[in-house]
């Protein structure tokens, strides 16, 4: 304030506030209240200043005193004081956390509630507006709607003629209704019917009611179904009409309502027709400025989640193009960018058509050199963590496109480098998604492997494979496994060097089956294509690894572990005579409890993949071109394996039947030659 108006300095104004003592009275008090109010509205700095000066408790005490005196029928002169005090309190609670706290601590709420039944409309308005400000803050107390007294009070507010009051009621309900029990209590009390009838009011009232309806039906199938039955479907019709309201925000809110109902009780909003309309409306709302356009992509994502039919609908009305157009804008709000990336991710999650459209040249910008994919990749480095996460998910889903991976449209060094950077992100959920994307890319793009090594990706992957978080261990191991798929010797050596024998063995012995399985698959990829152990392991390494593998096979903690383990043995069984002998011994050994041997157990499995893997192993072991095969066949015969095989001639799986016959043929050759 200019220095000439000395008496309006906050300190002095605050001194005049309060009840009794040195505080002002009558007209002077009213002036002081008005002065505070006018100084703080819109002005965060002044609010904080007055808060520090302790203005709030003083103002609340003035309010309390005036309310008491007003109820005592003292006079109309209380009304202006109440109005100013209430307005000031409401303003303190607007947008300033400390303000809300101060207002709540000072006990303002009960007094504000009591003036809602005042005879002077201006007083009621002031009270309702201030309470609305308070209840819009997360810090406001929950109104216990499970208590009859409270519920009746809320209902009475909803019945009011005063729109500020009905909006307040809707706001309180939306704020306080969390559990299914609370939602049901409100529904039982007829709140939904009342809210639907209020949808015919002004646009602000409509919006408040829509938000409230959504809060009451959300994630509650019983309440959602009951809503759909109101007026024999009239309530649903009212919502459907509102998706074409003249105001964008109202359209958005009604879409959100319908989406919430659709998710909670599918049968009522199941029709593809209404869902398609929602896709159309939301696609248009994407282009609205401000919060409507920011929130629209999130709602779109929710609507089409996991629904291929809706993905197709969206694709057919050019939603992908619309979304991509936003990516070209130089200054786009973080929230909106996050929403757009999430919506694009959802669209690319299942349908190849969608991924191709995103990657296709038609979705280039005016500046032809910039591809949509590059814009998404750029977002991997955005300041905002949520945007990085969304971009990461988008990339991961795009890389599900085998066609484009092979065609090299995704061969871009920058992707790998940025994804590796995200492996260092403080958020483990971002790390996980980055791992998912790398998993997809690294399988097919052999050229990306060198980039991964160069930028320190392998080191970080190995580090993550020893993380305390089992999901991180699993995912990073999957990337390493994929890296080793059809890898050359140099790459294999690189991994082994970084990974170290110790880590590999401990991963093979990991507490989680899924991790054991990935570790075994990794070993498989390591030994694949080798004709002897020396190609890849030292003797010591090899025996330690083999020990771990066979131990896991014995424990047989999961089907996947057994299958991968058998593949390892199959690969080894293709090596030297000595190796074949070791494998044979493992397979036919049985412990003192006379449990069946590994071979018998796996051949008798219900799972065809496990049977097949075992048959492959036996096929390699009994290969006629190997010198020791005949003695191995004898061992197998003695162990009852041949007998088991003969009993499987009617195996339901044709692949198994084929290999089974081949094994038996090979074994019979030896039997014949022996005889």
């Amino acid at each position, binding site marked *: *304030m*200019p*220095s*000439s108006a000395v008496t309006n300095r906050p300190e002095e104004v605050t001194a005049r506030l309060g009840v009794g003592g040195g505080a002002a009275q009558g007209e002077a008090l009213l002036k002081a209240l*008005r002065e505070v*109010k*006018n100084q703080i*509205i*819109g*002005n*965060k*700095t002044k609010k904080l200043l007055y808060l520090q000066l302790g203005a709030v408790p003083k103002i609340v005490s003035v309010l309390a005193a005036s309310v008491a005196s007003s109820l005592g029928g003292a006079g109309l002169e209380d009304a202006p004081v109440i109005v100013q005090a209430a*307005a000031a309190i*409401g*303003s303190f609670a*607007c*947008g300033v956390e400390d303000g809300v706290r101060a207002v709540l601590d000072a006990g303002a709420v009960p007094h504000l509630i009591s003036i809602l039944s005042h005879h002077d409309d201006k007083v009621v308005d*002031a009270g309702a*507006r201030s309470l*609305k*400000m308070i209840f819009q803050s997360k810090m406001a107390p929950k109104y216990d709607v499970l208590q009859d007294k409270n519920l009746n009070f809320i209902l009475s507010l909803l019945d009011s003629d005063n729109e500020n009051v009905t909006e307040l009621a809707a706001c309180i309900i939306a704020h306080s209704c969390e559990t299914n029990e609370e939602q049901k209590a409100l529904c039982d009390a007829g709140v939904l019917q009342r809210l639907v009838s209020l949808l015919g009011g*002004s*646009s*602000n*009232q409509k919006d408040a009611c829509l938000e409230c309806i959504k809060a009451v039906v959300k994630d509650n199938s019983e309440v959602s179904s009951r809503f759909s039955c109101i007026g024999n479907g009239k309530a649903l019709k009212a919502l459907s009409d509102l998706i074409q309201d*003249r105001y964008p925000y109202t359209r958005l809110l009604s879409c959100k309502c319908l989406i919430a109902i659709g998710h909670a009780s599918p049968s009522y909003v199941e029709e593809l027709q209404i869902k398609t309309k929602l896709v159309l409306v939301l696609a248009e709302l994407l282009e609205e400025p401000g919060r409507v356009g920011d929130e629209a992509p999130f709602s779109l994502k929710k609507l089409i989640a996991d629904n291929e039919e809706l993905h197709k609908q969206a694709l057919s009305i050019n939603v992908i193009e619309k979304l991509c157009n936003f990516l070209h804008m130089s200054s786009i709000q973080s929230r909106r960018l996050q929403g757009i990336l999430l919506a694009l991710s959802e669209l690319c999650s299942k349908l190849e058509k969608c991924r191709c459209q995103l990657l296709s040249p038609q979705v280039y910008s005016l500046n032809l050199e910039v591809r949509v994919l590059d814009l998404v990749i750029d977002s991997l480095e955005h300041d905002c963590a949520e945007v990085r996460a969304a971009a990461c998910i988008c990339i991961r889903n795009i890389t599900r496109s085998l066609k484009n991976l092979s065609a090299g449209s995704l061969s871009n060094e920058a992707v790998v480098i940025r994804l590796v950077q995200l492996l260092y992100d403080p958020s483990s959920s971002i790390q996980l998604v980055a791992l998912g994307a790398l998993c997809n890319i690294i399988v097919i793009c052999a050229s990306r492997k060198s980039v991964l090594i160069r930028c320190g990706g392998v080191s970080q992957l190995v580090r993550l494979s020893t993380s305390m978080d089992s999901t991180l261990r699993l995912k990073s191991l999957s990337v390493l496994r994929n890296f080793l798929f059809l890898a050359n010797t140099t790459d294999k050596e690189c991994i082994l060097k970084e990974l170290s024998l110790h880590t590999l063995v401990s991963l093979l012995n990991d507490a989680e089956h899924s991790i054991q399985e990935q570790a075994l698959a990794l070993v498989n990829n390591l030994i694949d294509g080798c004709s002897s152990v020396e190609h890849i392991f030292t003797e010591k390494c090899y025996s330690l690894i083999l020990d771990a593998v066979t131990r896991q096979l014995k424990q047989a903690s999961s089907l996947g572990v057994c299958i991968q383990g058998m593949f390892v043995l199959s690969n080894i069984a293709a090596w030297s005579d000595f190796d074949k002998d070791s494998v044979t011994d493992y397979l036919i050994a049985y412990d003192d409890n006379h449990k069946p041997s590994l071979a018998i157990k796996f051949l008798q499995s219900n799972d065809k993949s496990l049977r097949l893997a075992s048959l492959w192993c036996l096929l390699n072991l009994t290969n006629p071109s190997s010198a020791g095969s005949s003695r191995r066949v004898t061992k197998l015969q003695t162990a009852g394996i041949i007998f088991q095989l003969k009993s499987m001639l009617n195996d339901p799986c044709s692949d198994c039947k084929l290999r089974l016959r081949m094994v038996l043929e090979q074994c019979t050759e030896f039997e014949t030659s022996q005889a």
Partner: protein
Amino acid sequence: MSKKVITRDEWERKLKDVKITKEDMNKLIMNFLVTEGYVDTAEKFRIESGTEPGVDLATITDRMTVKQALQSGNVEDAIEKVNDLNPTILDTNPQLYFHLQQQRLIELIRSGKIEEALEFAQEELAPRGEENQSFLEELEKTVALLVFEDVKNCPYGDLLDVSQRLKTASELNAAILTSQSHEKDPKLPSLLKKLIWTQNQLDEKAAYPKINNLTTAALDDPVV
């Protein structure tokens, strides 16, 4: 590519075929008067044409005193009045509040109260820039006015124009209308914009009698 030519006679015949009721025209006018806040005119128009304003004229009066205060440069008065009308408006419209504070500074500079202006800029405007970075550019422009001797002719001199007051007044008016659940834009200007757009579209396909002067709505003969 040859364009189709429509003669004046043809055009006027087509215009005659378009039926617009007097009631609809009156509604458009009333909507304009109400939104822009011409209370007295709206009242007179209501009496003469029988068209209902659709809102309580008293609320228009409130809104108009705010607008008039601002248009006369009494920003503080306008702020007090809008806070009396609805204290939540300025609390929930940071950009509007900033523009009002900006206008206060402009008025202080206009009346030559430079020291007060400096203090005001420091105490009231600087915090706005701190609270919200997007205001910094405009803030800097306004504060720059303090540097120039000949303010009216400096690079940002247009901030001192009455048009700046009108701009802020319009913003404030729109915020009040929104808080009252009314549409903030009158329909008439939008219709005029649509007319211009439609003519531009048609220009590419045909030569026809065009309205070039919106104030007279005279039809100019087609240019062949």
